[in-house]
């Protein structure tokens, strides 16, 4: 936490900084740490801030960075986000008349997210607390007994319990806005699409004192659809070798949305370990199936000219048929633009859907082709939507 604070002070030329954490019971943030650049600077951070109040409380409640003047200091705060859930806020302030820019705010958010990941509990603990309020006491006891057996390395206990998790714990959506954190990859695994039985199954696998990766693979191939989803979500948390890649490939061949989504969306194992060709096909299929490709972690690091070509060819096919195109394709193909793409994106700046306008603006910002500038300015002059305006402004910056 200290390192994060010092890093933020240096990065933004601020004099004081603080970390606030959300009280689990009450709508308040409590001061968890503070640093000053000079020993003489008074910290003067409130020990407690109401949720939604002030710059720090406001950033946490809004889930986005906020600037303002507090105690005669220019202050910048960003929420500590795990998924879409703010667990606190990171704030810095500067004594002078320093104004924090939009770019500062975005950079601060990157830092606050990194700090949130560093502060996140281990996956098993996080899953237990996610489930705690959502399943009845007997279900909780069953899960405790079973995870205890798993922790003793009792493989058979997991194999026998795996199919029963749904009827023991429930199958409803988990309804969590939070995310688990995979430390070795330093990535978040959002829980938004998980169901209660997914959380239970992954808890069992995470607790296992043995080769969880090989076990997940076996449970995939002997499991029903829900068990398979659980095994794939487990791999998202601990899969690190190619040993279970065949289960992901199997899931990528299915037409079950649920299974395909578990295999690809929010799954860093898949996105890191699928071989090049298979990865491209998985991304294309995601676009085809209606899974947002923005949910494929690390996609931007892996996208190449061939994938860009495949996605744009899919776009053309959809356009020829008079069908809609997923907006999240634009920023991805912009990493490897093909001839004519800038013109097409300028056209999408005028699309009736905000998502398309924002995505096209982001894509144009990435390509940085000056020919697009008049179109971006033209749109900005007429744009009402806040999110789109921000994307247009960033494209011009």
């Amino acid at each position: 936490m200290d390192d994060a604070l010092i890093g933020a002070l240096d990065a933004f030329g601020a004099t004081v900084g603080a970390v606030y954490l959300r009280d689990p019971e009450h709508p308040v943030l409590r001061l968890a740490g503070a640093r000053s650049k000079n020993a003489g600077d008074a910290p003067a951070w409130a020990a407690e801030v109401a949720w939604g109040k002030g710059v720090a409380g406001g950033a946490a409640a809004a889930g986005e960075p906020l600037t303002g003047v507090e105690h005669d200091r220019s202050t910048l705060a960003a929420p500590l986000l795990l998924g879409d859930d703010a667990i606190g806020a990171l704030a810095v302030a500067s004594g002078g008349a320093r104004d924090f820019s939009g770019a500062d705010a975005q950079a601060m958010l990157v830092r606050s997210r990194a700090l949130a990941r560093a502060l996140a509990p281990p996956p098993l603990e996080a899953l237990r607390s996610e489930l705690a309020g959502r399943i009845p006491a007997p279900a909780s006891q069953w899960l405790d007994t079973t995870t205890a057996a798993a922790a003793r390395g009792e493989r058979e206990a997991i194999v026998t319990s795996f199919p029963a998790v749904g009827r023991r714990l429930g199958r409803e959506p988990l309804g969590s806005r939070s995310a688990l954190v995979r430390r070795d990859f330093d990535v978040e695994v959002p829980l938004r699409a998980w169901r209660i039985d997914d959380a239970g199954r992954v808890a069992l696998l995470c607790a296992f004192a043995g080769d969880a990766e090989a076990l997940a693979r076996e449970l995939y191939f002997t499991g029903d659809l829900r068990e398979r989803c659980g095994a794939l979500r487990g791999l998202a948390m601990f899969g690190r070798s190619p040993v279970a890649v065949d289960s992901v490939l199997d899931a990528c061949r299915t037409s079950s949305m649920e299974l395909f989504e578990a295999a690809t969306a929010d799954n860093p194992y898949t996105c890191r370990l699928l071989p090049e060709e298979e990865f491209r096909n998985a991304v294309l299929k995601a676009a085809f199936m209606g899974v947002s490709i923005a949910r494929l972690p690390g996609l931007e690091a892996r996208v190449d000219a061939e994938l860009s070509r495949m996605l744009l060819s899919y776009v053309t096919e959809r356009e020829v048929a008079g069908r809609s195109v997923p907006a999240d394709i634009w920023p991805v193909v912009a990493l490897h633009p093909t001839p004519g793409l800038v013109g097409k994106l300028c056209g999408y700046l005028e699309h009736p859907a905000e998502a398309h306008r924002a995505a096209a603006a982001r894509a144009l910002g990435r390509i940085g082709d000056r020919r697009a500038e008049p179109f971006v300015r033209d749109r900005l002059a007429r744009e009402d939507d806040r999110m789109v305006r921000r994307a247009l402004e960033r494209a011009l910056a």
Partner: protein
Amino acid sequence: MRIFEPHAHMLSRVTDDYEQMALAGIVAVLEPSFWLGQPRTSVGSFVDYFDAIIGWERFRAEQFGIRHYCTLSLNPKEANDDRVNEGVLALLPRYLEKDGVVGVGEIGFDDITPREERHFAAQLELARAHDLPALVHTPHRDKVRGVERTLAIMRELNFPPERVLIDHNTEQTVPVVIDTGCTMGFSIYPDTKMDEPRMVEILRRWGTDRMVINSAADWGKSDPLKIPKTVTLMRQKGMAEHEIEKVVWHNPVSFFAKSGRLDLRELDTPVSPGQQLFEGNSILRGPRA
């Protein structure tokens, strides 16, 4: 009126069937495993068949707002086939623990052979071990003797009759089964087995306790709308609504609830594809324009 279809081989039906079943008020369907119209040559075919029933078929049903449950077993016909019988029996313990598996079945007799008898008994023991009720098929030929043999084996094994559904009954078998405590199933078919007018007569004569009706729709000439069609006739013949509801909903639900795996709360919540978290699926052929 909500309908629980307690016997339909949906794997061999088309999506039009699901659509019409849903429109006719069928909200849940039970798929018993059986044979495929021709013999399988290896145990692997059963693995794929069971996987399809607990996976893809359930998914398909849900796309039409229908909950899908199943019973799994080695069927009586293939109990006679030494290429597969022992292997399938060895597979079953793993599958019987799966979610949505609410019974062992169809088991029972086809030609009433010693092999059928041995595997029927072994699978009643499996049902006991996994705490599941049993769905029992009765032969198309020499049916009464098949039913009598079924009841005899249950007695020998001391298998509780209230956990057995004896299926494909006719006017001849009703008197044999009626006082045993078993649930009695009737398969309403276009040409063979039971038809709607005869069914209504049976219900009027013998009452509705422990009586269930089904379409047994499969790959042969059959009609997945036979329950709603029979309901129409029941109404026309003046049967009370609560009696009808007992036959097409309460009786099958309370029988399969004996598995402890039929979530009644879940049954009360309609599945609708629109409730799923994310749009689109291959049955609806990809996201629409």
